């Protein structure tokens, strides 16, 4: 499909001469089934959840070799949870480059970070929470991004002219609190969703005692991607009753940094973050805390430890958050994991890990992800999520959300 010429006009994308672009497309479709082992803790929650997904990708590559327009819409239909049924434009981005310069404009995704168990400094895109609770899935973010590849590192500047609200499960969905999160978000910024955010990032690769050292520093000012969830109170007769949660998105100033050091078979990684929330207190929540957080640890790979071609990776990371156990679930936790890579024709791989809360020793999250290729156009993912939680810990909200999940993906 690559290198076919597009015969229709693309004026909207500013592509004036059609024949100057080569067109390519692909399509990914999926079917996903989730089975929750226990009944939901809250009324209305389902035990089985089926959904289908569709993600086309359309690409116009400039024949001049220095520009491209990419369009990636996404849609999931969930047969149980209306809130999980949603569409998004993952990408609608024009990018052009010339030597060390690169400019991207449109809707896109950016990833910042080095650690595996938590993505602390990654702030450009909003989390598409209904897709996956690990925060790996993101909503498309409107942006203008400039990149300069300099001798003293890579510089990136972002202007972010539109805000995306985090997605939350509906009444039938799992991984939620007893109170539903309202669709009517409130903002600190007067311009609400139209507030323009800014970010800059510097990344640099150096050397320490002869081994690679990767450094980044970033700053962000704008609307927080992480809402404060404010209880909605209504009067039932004379009694005030909490009926739901309203997301409040404050303005924040954020600075972040990542370090990665790679001696021999080791990858030593850390991320640091400070968020200065521009709201001191909110009715219903009281004082709002600023956040200082860190995550750090290592990944070590054993090549062929079992005498076959498989590799075994060992991971350990510690998570800290200054806001404490009442406000954050990654506040004093230890993640231990292993990645088994079969190195077979089917690219099979298993990642298993447990995140142990050190404040509440009875609270831990176990996650196992396995994937393999069934044939050249079909892959299979299987996920097991097990939650154990003490009554007092935040994770207790999900105590009955142990899950088996299987997804089949088709590629065209």
């Amino acid at each position, binding site marked *: 499909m*690559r290198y076919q010429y597009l015969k229709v006009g693309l004026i909207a994308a500013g592509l004036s001469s059609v024949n100057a672009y080569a067109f390519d497309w*692909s399509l*990914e479709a999926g079917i996903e089934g989730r089975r929750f082992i226990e009944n939901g803790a809250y009324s209305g929650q389902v035990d089985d959840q089926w959904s289908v997904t569709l993600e086309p990708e359309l*690409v116009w*590559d400039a024949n001049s070799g220095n520009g*491209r327009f990419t369009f990636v819409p996404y849609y999931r239909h969930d047969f149980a949870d209306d809130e999980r049924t949603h569409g998004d434009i993952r990408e609608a981005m024009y*990018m052009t*480059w010339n*030597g*060390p310069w*690169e400019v991207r404009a449109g809707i896109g*995704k*950016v*990833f910042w*970070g080095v650690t595996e168990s938590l993505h602390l400094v990654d702030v450009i895109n909003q989390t598409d929470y209904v897709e996956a609770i690990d925060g*790996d899935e993101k909503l498309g973010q409107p942006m203008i991004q400039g*990149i300069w*590849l300099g001798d003293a590192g*890579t510089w*990136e500047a972002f202007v972010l002219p539109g805000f995306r609200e985090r997605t939350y499960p509906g009444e039938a969905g799992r991984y939620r609190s007893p109170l539903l999160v309202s669709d009517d978000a409130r903002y600190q910024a007067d311009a609400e969703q139209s507030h323009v955010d800014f970010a800059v990032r510097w*990344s640099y*690769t150096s*050397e320490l005692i*002869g*081994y*690679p050292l*990767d450094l980044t520093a970033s700053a962000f000012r704008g609307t927080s991607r992480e809402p404060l969830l404010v209880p909605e109170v209504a009067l039932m007769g004379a009694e005030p009753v909490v009926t739901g949660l309203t997301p409040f998105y404050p303005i924040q100033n954020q600075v972040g940094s990542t370090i*990665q050091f*790679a001696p*021999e*078979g*080791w*990858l030593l990684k850390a991320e640091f973050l400070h968020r200065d929330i521009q709201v001191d207190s909110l009715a219903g929540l009281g004082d709002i805390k600023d956040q200082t957080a860190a995550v750090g640890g290592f*990944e*070590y*790979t054993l*090549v*062929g430890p079992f005498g*076959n*071609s498989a*590799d075994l*990776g060992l991971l350990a990371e510690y998570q800290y958050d200054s806001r404490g156990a009442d406000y954050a679930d990654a506040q004093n936790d230890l993640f231990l994991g292993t*990645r088994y*890579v*079969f*190195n*077979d*024709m*089917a*690219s099979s*791989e298993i990642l298993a890990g447990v995140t142990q809360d050190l404040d509440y020793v009875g609270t831990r999250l176990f996650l196992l992800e396995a*994937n393999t*290729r069934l044939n*050249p*156009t079909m*892959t299979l993912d299987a996920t097991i999520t097990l939650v154990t939680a003490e009554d007092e810990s935040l994770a207790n909200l999900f105590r009955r959300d142990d899950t088996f999940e299987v997804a089949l*993906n088709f*590629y*065209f």
Partner: protein
Amino acid sequence: MKMTATLFTGITGLAASMLIGFATPAMADDGGRGLELAKERKARDTGWGDSQANMTMILRNAQGEESKREMRLKNLEVLDDGDKGLTIFDEPRDVSGTAFLSFSHIAKPDDQWLYLPALKRVKRISSRNKSGPFMGSEFAYEDMGSFEPEKYEFEYLRDEPCATDLTCHVIESDPIDKYSGYTRQITWLDTEHLRPVKTEYYDRKNSLLKTLNMTGWHQYKDQYWRASRMEMQNHQNGKSTLIITHDIRFDTGLTDADFNKASLKRAR
């Protein structure tokens, strides 16, 4: 999905990954002949600049089942260090857009990164993984890196007939890196052009592990030889991998900016 390592400095690396180095007291004294041939071979493959190629990689298991990967390679020669390489996968479609960036180095471990398009994430690969298989193939990452003489000790063994109608210098090259998967490699270099037509790899127990045969040689820019078929046979597990180069172009205008981990989205 995980991939590691050096993938490419590419074809050039492959064609090159076995020769040259310093003669050291650890090796039998060949009067410096092995080193001399290696230096000559390196000299003949210097100055090619940059190249781009389309390749098919066919994996075969012991039962004869096949699995195919389509990929594109971009290579940039770096005169005072190892070369830079970028591999972009087109098929299987679930890994389409995955890119593998490597900077080979003479005096230190190679830098390697993997770009995962779904996450838009660039992951550094630790250098220790070099002895691991590349994309499930019988090629190890270290087989695919740019050929740097400083990474081996050499010994000239003998001359003998090879590849049906050629005569070859037979040279042993021992990797200096303690994390190499090999104790030694035996390379057959044809006497006329110093092309590595065949290489045997011996594992850490000094048993014959793999044999690489390179055929379909073509000359580019009136100087540089590249093999269009590279077949690696693993003698211990019965699997094999064939890499076919469909076309290779030189002087395509690649620069350092095309080999930057911050610009991997350009590659696609």
